[in-house]
């Protein structure tokens, strides 16, 4: 097995986390038309929630659940208390509200946990490595990729096979029509925002043992999520998946070929794609 194939596989794992991080951004944009600039901060809160609850209870699963639930609740509150008042305003009002929310959440995390980076232990039982030829693959990475794939499948079922999913998709087409049919659109909005937020939190919880937890990870994550969604195309489910995988694989391959430029490469990939496909790979907007 050669190093590039190995790096591509590694990138697949990173890419699945990127998918989970960005799918919530795409879902929120699709229904609410809100570009959630707080998405990275929600990822950050998820990582710290998983770290502290996982540490206090000694259960990794409890930590993961907390990362989803805590962040989904923050999303629910944020939608109810702030965003809901801006739906009649110009679009940039919602963006600026989420930017403000990102400042508040990031500073709150520093206030509670301090500015130093923290190590987050890999759960016991997932700590070893698998040997793939001459290359060691940490089991936890394989686990994360598997969990992300499962959640992706569950989301697909939720949106394609349930009444809630049908309402969200109908709301994408026309929120006004949905409300004329007697459906409480506001509730669908709030739940969708909470779900999208929770997914970002869960991505943070899963990523914490891979990269540790530090207050700067939110700003990093929101940029990655934007690049994934812009590359993949917004308003579709395949966009974040293919975009996430492409970004993950590119970043991983380039870190062997040109380490200083690995980050630059993903932005160049995005810019080149936009030049030829202004709506991204699967964009419908």
């Amino acid at each position, binding site marked *: 097995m050669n190093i590039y194939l190995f790096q591509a596989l590694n990138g697949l794992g990173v890419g699945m986390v990127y998918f989970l991080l960005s799918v919530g951004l795409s879902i929120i944009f699709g229904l609410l038309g809100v570009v959630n600039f707080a998405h990275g901060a929600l990822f950050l809160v998820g990582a710290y929630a998983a770290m502290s609850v996982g540490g206090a209870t000694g259960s990794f699963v409890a930590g993961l659940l907390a990362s989803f639930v805590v962040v989904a609740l923050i999303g629910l509150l944020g939608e109810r208390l702030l965003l809901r008042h801006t739906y009649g305003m110009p679009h*940039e*009002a919602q963006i600026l*509200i989420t930017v*403000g929310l*990102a400042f*508040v959440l990031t*500073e709150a995390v*520093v206030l509670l946990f301090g500015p130093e980076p923290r190590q987050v232990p890999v759960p016991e039982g997932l700590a070893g490595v698998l040997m793939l030829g001459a290359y060691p693959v940490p089991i936890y990475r394989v686990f994360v990729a598997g969990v992300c794939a499962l959640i992706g499948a569950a989301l697909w079922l939720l949106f394609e096979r349930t009444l809630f999913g049908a309402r969200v998709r109908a709301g994408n087409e026309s929120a006004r029509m949905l409300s004329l049919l007697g459906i409480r659109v506001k509730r669908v909005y709030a739940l969708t925002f909470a779900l999208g937020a929770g997914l970002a939190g869960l991505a943070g919880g899963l990523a914490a043992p891979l990269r540790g937890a530090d207050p700067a990870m939110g700003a990093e994550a929101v940029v990655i999520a934007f*690049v994934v969604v812009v590359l993949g195309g*917004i308003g579709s489910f395949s966009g974040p998946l293919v975009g996430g995988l492409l970004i993950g694989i590119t970043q991983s391959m380039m870190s062997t070929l040109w380490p200083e430029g690995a980050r630059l490469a993903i932005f160049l990939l995005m810019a080149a794609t936009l030049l030829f496909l202004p709506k991204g790979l699967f964009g419908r907007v």
Partner: protein
Amino acid sequence: MSDPTSSSPTGFYLAVACMALAMPLLMGSASSAAAVLVFGIAAAACNLLLGYAGQLSFAQGAFFGAGSYGAGLLLKAWPGLGVAALPLAALAGASVAAAVGLLSVRQRGIYGVMITLAMGQLAFFAALSFPQLTGGENGLLDIPRPVTGLEGWLGPEVAHYVLVALGFAGALALLRRVLRSSFGRILDAIRENEVRAATAGYDVRRFKLLAFCLSGGVTGLAGALYATQLRSAPLSSIDLATSEMILIMSILGGRRSLPGAVLGAMAMTLMAEHLSAWWPRWQMLVGMVLIGAVLFAPNGLAGLAARWRRRLAGGPAREALP
């Protein structure tokens, strides 16, 4: 609404001159005052894009940083360039803005906003990826200041402040002229109703792209003055945080008022200087102030001031349409 197109030219230029002269007294030092004027330029350039063209851009830091690095590289290579490095740095800012605008104005609505952020970060990582040229994480150090000829008479700090103040007055005068021209009116029309402007025969994308280039050029000038003030171009000058700061200054001051932008820059600089000493997590307050401004004062400090003026004059409390 306080709008640079409705105030008298004498009043406007008087206000600009007073700000430039009084800022060192208000801020307590030439360097803080220079920072306010530099960010005042950047926030006013952001107003052109946000308040007039209706384009929310998270790439202002990239234009600012392009100006900082551009001026730094030029002055380090040819210190004899002097003040001529400033317009060249503005050109660098305008070029980066052209690249960002080219990709983002093709999109309708807020999708383009995400592209400005992603492209802005491209500039950040470009600066980080070529450390031989840009100094990487350390930024570009030991940038010589352009010689103005006033150093012997006023001392280096005041002489440089005069340069910054002249750049500030020039940039604000330029922006006012642009906004008063038919070009500014067309930007208004596009912001109010894009379809109607297009039906009237205006090439909407071209005008938006021009607005990006102009805003990028003026922001680049601000970045250049920032670098010569600090004698270095820090990596943070091209960061997303700089974009957000400029944007918040513009919104806080009032997105449709050029003097308001300077007020926004002053408010943020004061907060950064005084609150940060009192409470390291002061940016949490910045976030809250931003949320409050969006919900309760969409026209910023300038809008609040106008509302109070009307209330004192006994006029209607509601803001008139521009």
